């Protein structure tokens, strides 16, 4: 009954990871030209975590993610045009342009939250999971959060409650090495945050977050465990964000050579080499995918920019439900 019972579409994963990478690069460009305003938190370098974990979900499962959530939103199948429109504040965006970069939400795809408050998505995912449990539905909730969130109260409270209630939830700690501008060890007394699972009597696993196959396998196992009624799991994905914390952060605090060392283990390259070696996707075919995706992303951004802004009357409709 595990999700992995169907052979995973690893070529599809490659396409999706390339889409996320090119989408994020385009977002950066659109910020520079003023077509997207405010702030944004990009996830280049973390694509294997988004795609590997999301691909372990089944229809009916849900997840929450964070302000660095474009990767999860796209991995869940959000149309890049809809995502761009949201970032541009257009009414055709997933959240009618009212949310922006930090709130790429689409309930129809199981994406029940992208939160701009560190740690706030964990209780929400636990709540959804407990609802599934109460109704005896074989559904699972995932929640993505960063290493910084491991030091906020809701992390500890949510893991504790999920364990006490054996909630069908998978905690995906995306350790990209920095909480805002601070390296993990400047704010946290341990290197491996997965160890914190022990305090909450749940399995804690360290996963190579650059290896999409490893991410998928670990998540599929945790999802199966949750679905079987055996409770939550904490997965620590070791990864890296290529960009700074947000748009205004050039990440000068990083030691020389660190970025290059991580780029030598680029998640898209790792999967690409593997697919080529296995005869599943040639380097030439990979180049074609990159070129096609670039064209599609450019076109999606252009279409998004042509859409109208929402009106204040429309916005007012979404404050209270009938």
């Amino acid at each position, binding site marked *: 009954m595990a999700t992995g019972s169907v052979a995973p579409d690893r070529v599809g994963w490659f396409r999706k990871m390339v889409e996320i990478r090119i989408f994020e690069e385009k977002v950066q460009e659109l910020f520079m030209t003023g077509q997207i305003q405010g702030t944004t938190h990009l996830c280049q370098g973390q694509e294997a975590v988004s795609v590997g974990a999301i691909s372990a979900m089944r229809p009916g499962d*849900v997840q*929450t993610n964070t302000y660095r959530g474009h990767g999860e939103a796209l991995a869940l199948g959000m149309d890049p045009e809809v995502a761009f429109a949201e970032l541009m504040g257009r009414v055709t*965006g*997933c*959240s*009618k*342009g*009212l*949310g922006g970069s930090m*709130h790429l*939400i*689409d*309930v129809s795809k199981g994406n*029940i*939250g992208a*939160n*701009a*408050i560190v740690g*706030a998505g*964990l*209780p*929400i*995912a*636990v*709540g*959804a*999971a*407990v*609802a*599934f*449990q*109460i*109704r005896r539905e074989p559904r699972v*909730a995932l929640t993505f959060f960063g290493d910084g969130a491991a030091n906020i*109260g*809701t992390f500890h*409270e*949510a893991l*504790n*409650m999920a364990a*006490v*209630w054996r909630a069908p939830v998978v905690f995906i700690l995306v350790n990209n090495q920095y909480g805002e501008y601070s390296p993990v060890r400047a704010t946290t007394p341990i290197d491996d945050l997965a160890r914190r699972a022990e305090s909450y009597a749940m399995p804690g696993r360290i996963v190579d977050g650059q290896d999409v196959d490893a991410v998928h396998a670990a998540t599929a196992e945790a999802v199966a465990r949750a679905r079987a009624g055996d409770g939550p799991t904490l997965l620590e994905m070791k990864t890296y964000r290529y960009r700074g914390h947000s748009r205004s952060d050039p990440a000068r605090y990083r030691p020389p050579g660190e970025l290059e060392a991580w780029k030598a283990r680029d998640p898209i390259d790792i999967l690409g080499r593997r697919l080529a070696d296995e005869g599943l996707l040639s380097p030439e075919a990979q180049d074609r995918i990159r070129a096609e995706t670039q064209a599609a992303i450019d076109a999606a951004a252009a279409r998004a920019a042509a859409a109208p802004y929402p009106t204040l009357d429309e*916005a007012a*409709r*979404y*404050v*209270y*439900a*009938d």
Partner: protein
Amino acid sequence: MSTLTEADVTSATAVAELTYREAIAAALDDEMAADPAVVLLGEDVATEGGVFKTNVGLVEKYGPERVRNTPICENTFVGVALGMSLVGLRPVVEIMFSDFLPTAGDAIVNQLPKYRFMSGGQFAVPVTIRSIGGATGRFGTQHSATGESWFMHLPGLRIVTAATPGAAYELLRAAIRDNNPVILYEHKGLYGRKGPVRRGAIGAIGRAAVVRPGRDVTIVATLLMVERSLQAADALAAEGIEAEVIDLRWIRPLDVETVRRSVERTGRLVVAEEQVHAGGWGATLISELTMDGLAWRHPPLAVSLPPDLPIPYSPPLEDAVLPSAATIGAAARTACGR
């Protein structure tokens, strides 16, 4: 499930004399019976009927899955309630003391009221928070706040207060049925009060109640201050002053209209608040009425907690800081020029 109509309000089948705490339990029972999506969670809600015995019989009737004791972690269990609501449950969260609401500050300020909006209307958030507050219990400064105005700034939230057993029953049922986050404030000094409860009735959203008509001065109050205002009105009547007493009930949305209709007749207003006046519903009400150009016969008056003194433990001091029937009555006399 949608909000109610006047027909619902008048569909009550029987009137029972219940205590305020029994009225709470009855409302929870009736909603849990009507809708399997309603669940109750909070600290010790399933143990011995809850700390204030407002949940008596519920875990026995509906089981530990729907009546759930949580760990002590308000921010997370309110967030959990939000997550439940996003996938179809209708959770009711109990906050044991309103003073604990700020520990759930992120969930209350950033999550519940904004979740629907920032998703472009993809969700309804039918979460009810029952918050137990109020002084007179000698609980000291961190267990005595009403907190009723703390969150009134927040679009997306509804805030309601229960002053009587009947109001507690009808307003809790209305809160649970509403598709928006609602904080219902209860007063722990009122749990033993008895009064008529229209079993089956469901209160109207955003509607204040004129609980005693009068022509000379309008007194607006919430929670325990409603009872004290009615006592003051009795004393005033003996002196020939007819006070109109309004149980404000809803702080968001604030029923300015009902108060305006009253003050347009009386020209005099006293707000009786078990809270500091500045930044609260009383100040907002006066501001709204004044900005509308209401012709005051006497400037509005506030009877409230001292502005710079937390609620003290020492029993005579706790009594002294709270508005009483006497201080409310004195303000009404002043307003009437006596």
